[in-house]
């Protein structure tokens, strides 16, 4: 999965988001060892300090952990990953709902639209 960045928010936040996404979809699995800061920085073409900052923040949030001599790993706690996935899903739902409210839809209408949409997807 390629890294991509926009220009308005700090890069380390964008890196954190993208690593979270990779963990949530199982691109990085529980207990996986991450590449070194330098390798990840080169891959994303960002400054190593920025990558370091993003990884330390993720560590603080409990999604990564460091083993002193052997490197940095994805958390082995599957519950943490479940919670992460849920919170990423909630973010998307919030965004979606906000847009639907802006378009003037009520909760009930949104539900109907969603069911229709899911029904069509299943038929296709």
């Amino acid at each position, binding site marked *: 999965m390629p890294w991509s960045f926009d220009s308005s928010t700090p890069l380390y936040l964008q890196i954190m988001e993208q690593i979270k996404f990779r963990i949530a979809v199982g691109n990085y699995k529980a207990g996986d060892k991450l590449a070194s800061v330098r390798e990840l920085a080169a891959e994303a*073409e960002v400054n*190593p300090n920025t990558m370091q900052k993003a990884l330390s923040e993720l560590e603080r949030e409990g999604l990564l952990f460091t083993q002193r001599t052997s490197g940095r790993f994805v958390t082995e706690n599957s519950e943490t990953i479940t919670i992460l996935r849920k919170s990423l899903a909630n973010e998307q739902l919030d965004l979606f709902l906000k847009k639907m409210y802006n378009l003037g839809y009520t909760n009930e209408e949104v539900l109907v639209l969603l069911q229709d949409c899911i029904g069509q997807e299943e038929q296709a």
Partner: protein
Amino acid sequence: MLVECKNLCKTYGETIALNNINLNIERGRIIGLLGPNGSGKTTLIKVLSGLLTKSSGEVTISDKEIGIETKKVVSYLPERTYLSEWMTVKQVVDFFKDFYDDFSEETAYGMLERLNIKPGDRLKTMSKGTKEKVQLILVMSRQAELFLLDEPIAGVDPAARDYIIKTIIGNYNENASVIISTHLISDVEKILDEVIMIKYGCLVMHKTVDEIRDEHGKSVDALFREVFAC
């Protein structure tokens, strides 16, 4: 502190090229030196590299006045290549090895090999972009404390630009800082820690890239266009 400038001035006759620059640079940083044409970027780099002498004020690198001792720890990539056209890659590598104690032949040949540049190749047979890459490789193959890169990405194609950026990241070391002067901001923005903006020889901004994005909600490139709008 790696670099300290206090009230640094440089004048050419009546022209003021650097006006009272106060600047501190820490180790382990990648810094963009940004400013429009004629703002004093190259002058500042040349003062730090010891090619120009200051007119007044103070400037030190690793607590030493600019001179032979600082030249040993400063690796400078000039705007234009100074290597002789008749030389082969091996000859320029030997030249650098002879000149600088901290030059690593192994690093240089490693990087050259990855670009398919052979020791026997002559500079005059190379394209402009390839020559610039060779020069950058030589400069980055030193274990210097301060790298001064004057417009390293101007005039090369986008693929070469990516290569140069990767080389700068790959050679990053905590003990050294890299100053990159450029006006192609969006290309280097991702690899910068800090940004120094100068205008008419005056320092107008010295901030981290995160600060800029946090405070202004825009990229360095967008802010630059705002600060230097004509």
